[in-house]
């Protein structure tokens, strides 16, 4: 029987990686990812998990080691955050176009400078275009479930792409939550052993990672893009299978009280829980407000998102990332692009909030909804607004 326990989310993720029978775990410590890899290292040391824990000397080496391990045919896991994720950036692109299955949990954290260990989404947004499948968890249970789901999808021969599961640093990684840890037998049923189509094997020599001359480079990149688009089908399929075995249902876009909504908040990650409380408060006060949460960020589920918006006319999109000099945050830009010149599409207002660990409270969400309503009447001067900036 699966058991429901009070457990720190990072520890629960490590347990999930153990249940997935990960085989090689190259890891380098960075706050707030540390508890995940510490616990994995403990599990290996205590012979609870038969894996190689490779204590590499940097995140770049971690990702490079992951590439070698995956190419040699082992189930591969790592975890990182912020500066570390940026350091491995070069190799992220290589892992994905080389179609090397692996799973990385990213404990999202702000980027330096000024140095900050606290949570926002700048670290992941600058890796948006690395060609990895990217999902965002809202709570501990989802973090565990998405981690198991990630192995299943990544290693599916129809997909063969690396996956990042994003969890908010501290606000998710370091909290204790009641989490249902699945049974080993159920996980084994959901997740068959890793059998890559191609691997480094002297019995069947292949060349991996060759030079791409101009005559083939475009096609290699298009193949990657096609694989990402095709992956959506298998992501959804795996979520359906997950539901059959574990009873929990996941969608690329989650809707909360969206029926007849005039304004929809759009969020990603753990602030969605506060956003739901804000929606409840506003609904109680007679406001027609709902919430859309993006769980699957890459490949972007455009069709599902449009369907989820329905007839709502105002979207208040919250980005936890401020790209200086850009027209707006990346999620705002994505949605504006999604609805561009589509008849009857909603007005999209972009907000930036919750940078570097600043809390986004219920009151802030109310402020955002009020502003979005006001902007719908009178067009704002700027294409986005940063919420909660101190004047003094």
């Amino acid at each position: 029987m699966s058991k429901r326990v009070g457990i720190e989310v990072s520890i629960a993720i490590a347990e999930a990686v153990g249940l997935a029978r990960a085989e090689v775990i190259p890891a380098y410590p960075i706050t707030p990812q540390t508890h995940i890899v510490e616990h994995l290292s403990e599990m290996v040391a205590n012979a609870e998990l038969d894996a190689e824990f490779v204590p590499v000397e940097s995140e770049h080496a971690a990702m490079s080691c992951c590439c070698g391990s995956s190419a040699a045919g082992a189930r591969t896991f790592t975890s990182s955050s912020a500066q570390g994720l940026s350091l491995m950036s070069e190799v992220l692109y290589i892992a994905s176009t080389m179609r090397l299955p692996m799973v990385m949990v990213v404990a999202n954290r702000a980027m330096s400078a000024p140095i900050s260990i606290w949570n926002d989404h700048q670290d992941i947004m600058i890796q948006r275009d690395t060609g990895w499948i990217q999902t965002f968890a809202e709570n501990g249970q989802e973090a565990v479930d998405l981690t198991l789901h990630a192995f299943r999808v990544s290693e599916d021969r129809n997909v063969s792409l690396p996956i990042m599961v994003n969890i908010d640093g501290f606000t998710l990684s370091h909290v204790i939550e009641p989490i249902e840890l699945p049974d080993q037998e159920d996980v084994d049923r959901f997740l068959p052993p890793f059998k890559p189509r191609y691997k480094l094997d002297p019995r069947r020599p292949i060349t991996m990672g060759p030079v791409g001359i101009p005559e083939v480079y475009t096609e290699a990149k298009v193949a990657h893009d096609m694989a990402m688009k095709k992956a959506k089908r298998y992501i959804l399929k795996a979520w359906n299978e997950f539901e059959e075995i574990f009873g929990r249902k996941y969608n690329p876009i989650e809707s909360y009280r969206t029926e007849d909504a005039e304004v929809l908040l759009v969020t990603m990650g753990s602030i969605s829980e506060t956003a739901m409380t804000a929606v409840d408060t506003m609904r109680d006060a007679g406001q027609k407000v709902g919430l859309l949460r993006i769980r699957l960020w890459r490949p972007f589920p455009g069709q599902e998102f449009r369907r989820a918006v329905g007839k709502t006319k105002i979207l208040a999109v919250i980005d936890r990332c401020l790209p200086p000099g850009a027209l707006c945050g990346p999620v705002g830009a994505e949605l504006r692009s999604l609805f561009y010149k589509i008849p009857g599409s909603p007005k999209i207002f972009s907000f930036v909030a919750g940078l570097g660990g600043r809390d986004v409270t219920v009151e802030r969400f109310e402020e955002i909804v009020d502003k979005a309503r006001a902007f719908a009447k009178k067009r704002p001067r700027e294409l986005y607004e940063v919420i909660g900036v101190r004047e003094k």
Partner: protein
Amino acid sequence: MIPEFEKFKGFKAKNLPKEEPLSPGHRGCQGCGEVLALRMVMKALGKDVIVCNATGCMEIITSPYPHTAWRVPWIHIAFENAASVASGVESARKVLARKGKIPKKHVDILAVGGDGATGDIGLQFISGAFERGHDFLYVCLDNEAYMNTGVQRSGCTPYGAMTTTSPPGKKSFGQVTWKKNVPAIAVAHNIPYVATASPAYFLDLMNKVKKAALVKGPAYVHIYSPCPTGWGSAGERSIEISRLAVETKVFPLYEVIEGRYIISRKITKPKPVTEYFKGQRRFRHLDEEHIEYIQRKVDAEYEKLLRLAEMS
């Protein structure tokens, strides 16, 4: 001594392996000493090997898709990280063999890169892999500059040499720093086997590579690799230049087995460095003063090496 060496009789001209894991038909320059050295490396290792190649000349000339010169499994990820990729391959094979998912038969894991990939940008990655003790061998094919990008200086470029980023001029005489001693850095990691080798002494080179593969744990072989294109030397002279580098003590051949230095080829009647410089455009601009300095320093470095060998 290393127990794995006992059964190894050594390669001889008579028993050279016929197989060529690195096939001809690649796109190397005429007279390339590096690909010649790599061919010998691969002959020594045979078929049961996985190659992790750093970005560089060897990677580009052997793998322009859809062609490949590799008859053994080969992977290229990036420039600086061949040692980390090899760490991953080694770890994967260890756990997969333990779980019975792959045969237990030993497979050598070779990481190979140029001097830039090894001594400069990849130094940290190599250090990490050595310190962690992975069972693999790292081969540095040292052609003494960034040749693939058009002959820029590296930490392994010799003193005085002309490159596109160490040009001689009114205020400069070429490379201002002495060649970085990467084998000594490898030795400092207390790994069981370190060696230098030269394609002019091909049996010595192959034996060292084989020993590096046989030894349990990390091993490092630093191979001198002439680059006619970058050095401004005649293609047909690559082997001759390689031999002169040894005979003038510029590139001494030695092994360091469990910390003990053993000179492979003692140079009792050294030729002057000027013999070595002849026919290499990269040294043509050097005046007597610099040549004298180089000669003194080469002698002193060789003395240091002899003392290390005496001590151990």
